[in-house]
């Protein structure tokens, strides 16, 4: 996609920011660094495990000892290619590794091996799931492979920085979006979807807290539809929420400067989540002349078109395809479908709840409703992951069966659901042990109705003279008389007959 077409993309009216001189539009491009979920590093055989003792996973290649040569990890290449295919990009049959030269304490080589002019993947797209079932497609410029740097800790000593090279040399996929995002919410939706795709593919664990997924945001502002303004880059923000907050703050800061007659300096800024503000890190023009050139230690990366095709045909179903399937095959609303497809673990649970132990076909909508309302509410309340759910998918399915075959009403089902959460057993066991089986015997329900009507002749008279609201009163009384177990549909029908 060209710069012109990116410029033509307009923000939704509600995403414009009101300034003193009128409305402003935010223009955002994101650079995401995703660590490849590999056992060993991109160019060395040392381990990548998170949380190991500092400097215990450092090979002589990672520490840049003289004469050490990089040998590329086939698996990392494959994961980068799969990710490219997963975002509908083009995997290039030839790509090239370059040296990006700069000095920093956690970069022992003095250069980062990266891909500059010929990345492994060109193009691609991410479909944003926006509120009310809306969506928007954002172009991906490129995905390239590069080495991660070591980790500097500035807070362990008053005058020293401590460097851990365990991270040095871990494979990163840098995924660059077109400057087509127009609000902090869109940026968050982009990150959520990209993270979801990476996790579906299993190419990155998406863990922002541990830094295996990191995001830099390029932010500028312009008058709606005008030329792009000067951008600032906000570095290494470590949660999706902070990315939104940082963009919001940064846009306001730039608008204030521009409206006061100032100009924006192109610079790198850091987001301070404690203060909720960004501040300048370093000035770009000074330090950043990277002098890229082909890394003479590495031959071009050539990939067989047949191999790329085989990777493509072996890709798993990804979140967009899955939510589409839920809409078309199961009749779910786009919103519910997206919620259930957003995390692989959600959809695994959902599909297990649909089929596990099922003797009849379960209604996908009822299962989805129970999951998005009751199950998610419990998980939220107890602060649990879906994998730790106190009600198994099979039990949720069983509960839905009991509702569908008329054994219990939806109301009683909530009681059973809670009992399952409390560990009283399976839904079927609870229905039996607590005697919750719905009364669907018309004789028993009729008897209950008759005694209610007989005990309330005045109310019956009122109802017959037009006080329709009393119908609810009779239903309530009859329900009470059957301890809530009367089949509600039958009760309604019978009551209507008796009262007319």
């Amino acid at each position, binding site marked *: 996609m060209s710069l012109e077409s990116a410029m033509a993309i307009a923000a939704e009216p509600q995403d414009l920011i009101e300034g003193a001189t009128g409305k402003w539009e935010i223009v955002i491009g994101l650079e995401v660094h995703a660590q490849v979920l*590999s*056992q*060993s590093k991109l160019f*060395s*055989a*040392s*381990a990548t495990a998170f949380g190991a*003792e*500092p*400097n*215990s*996973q*450092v*090979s*002589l290649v990672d*520490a840049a*000892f003289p004469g050490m040569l990089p*040998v*590329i*990890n*086939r*698996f*990392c*290449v494959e994961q980068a290619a799969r990710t490219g295919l997963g975002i509908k990009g083009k995997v290039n049959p030839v790509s*090239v590794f370059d040296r990006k*030269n700069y*000095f*920093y*304490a956690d970069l022992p080589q003095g250069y980062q091996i990266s891909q500059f002019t010929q990345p492994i993947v060109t193009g691609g797209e991410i479909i944003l799931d926006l509120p009310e079932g809306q969506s928007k497609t954002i172009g991906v410029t490129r995905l390239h492979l590069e080495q991660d740097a070591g980790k*500097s*800790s*500035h807070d*362990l*000593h*008053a*005058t*020293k*920085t*401590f*460097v*851990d*090279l365990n991270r040095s040399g871990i494979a990163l996929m840098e995924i660059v979006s077109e400057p087509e995002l127009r609000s902090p919410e869109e940026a968050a939706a982009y990150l959520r979807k990209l993270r979801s795709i990476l996790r579906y593919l299993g190419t990155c664990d998406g863990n922002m807290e541990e830094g295996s997924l990191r995001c830099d945001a390029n932010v500028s502002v312009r008058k709606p539809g005008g030329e792009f303004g000067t951008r600032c880059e906000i570095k290494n923000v470590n949660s999706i929420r902070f990315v939104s907050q940082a963009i919001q703050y940064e846009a306001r800061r730039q608008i204030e400067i521009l409206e006061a007659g100032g100009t924006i300096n192109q610079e790198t800024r*850091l987001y301070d989540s404690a203060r909720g503000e960004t501040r300048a*890190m*370093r000035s770009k023009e000074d330090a950043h*002349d990277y*002098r890229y050139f*082909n890394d*003479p230690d*590495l*031959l*071009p*990366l*050539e990939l067989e078109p047949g191999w790329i095709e085989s990777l493509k045909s072996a890709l798993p179903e990804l979140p967009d395809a899955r939510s589409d399937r839920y809409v078309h095959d199961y009749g779910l609303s786009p919103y519910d479908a997206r919620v259930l497809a957003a995390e692989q673990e959600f959809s695994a649970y959902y599909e297990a709840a649909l089929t596990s132990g099922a003797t009849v076909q379960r209604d996908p909508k009822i299962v989805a409703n129970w999951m998005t309302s009751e199950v998610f509410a419990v998980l939220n309340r107890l602060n649990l992951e879906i994998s730790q759910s106190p009600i198994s998918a099979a039990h949720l399915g069983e509960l839905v069966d009991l509702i569908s075959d008329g054994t219990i009403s939806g109301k009683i089902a909530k009681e059973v659901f809670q009992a399952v959460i409390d560990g009283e057993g399976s839904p079927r066991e609870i229905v039996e042990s607590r005697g919750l089986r719905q009364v669907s015997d018309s004789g028993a329900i009729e008897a209950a109705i008759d005694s209610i009507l007989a005990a309330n002749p005045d109310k019956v008279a009122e109802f017959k003279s037009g006080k329709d609201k009393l119908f609810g009163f009779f239903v309530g009384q009859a329900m009470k008389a059957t301890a809530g177990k009367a089949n509600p549909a039958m009760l309604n029908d019978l009551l209507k007959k008796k009262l007319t």
Partner: protein
Amino acid sequence: MSLNQDDVKKVARLARIKLPAEAIPAMITELNGIIKFVEQLQEVDTKGVEPMVRVVTMPLPMRDDRVDYPNLQREVLSNAQEADIAGNRGRYFVVPKVVE
């Protein structure tokens, strides 16, 4: 192409080489000599010839994703100018504070 005083200063800064002011004129002459020497290559007509960046024509060798490296923590740190190897907070390379 030739380098002036600013170019030489910039290259020195990027390479983190401390260049005293009195050394600059000699460096300009020397570097321009090298550039001139290399510039002779431009006499060759390369129109329509693919740039050749490598002399070997073989595929990039790849390895499988296996961890196969001993823990060289002690050895790696033993070469550092300064290291914190007391290890009460872990063992680190230590450099002057670089906070941005």
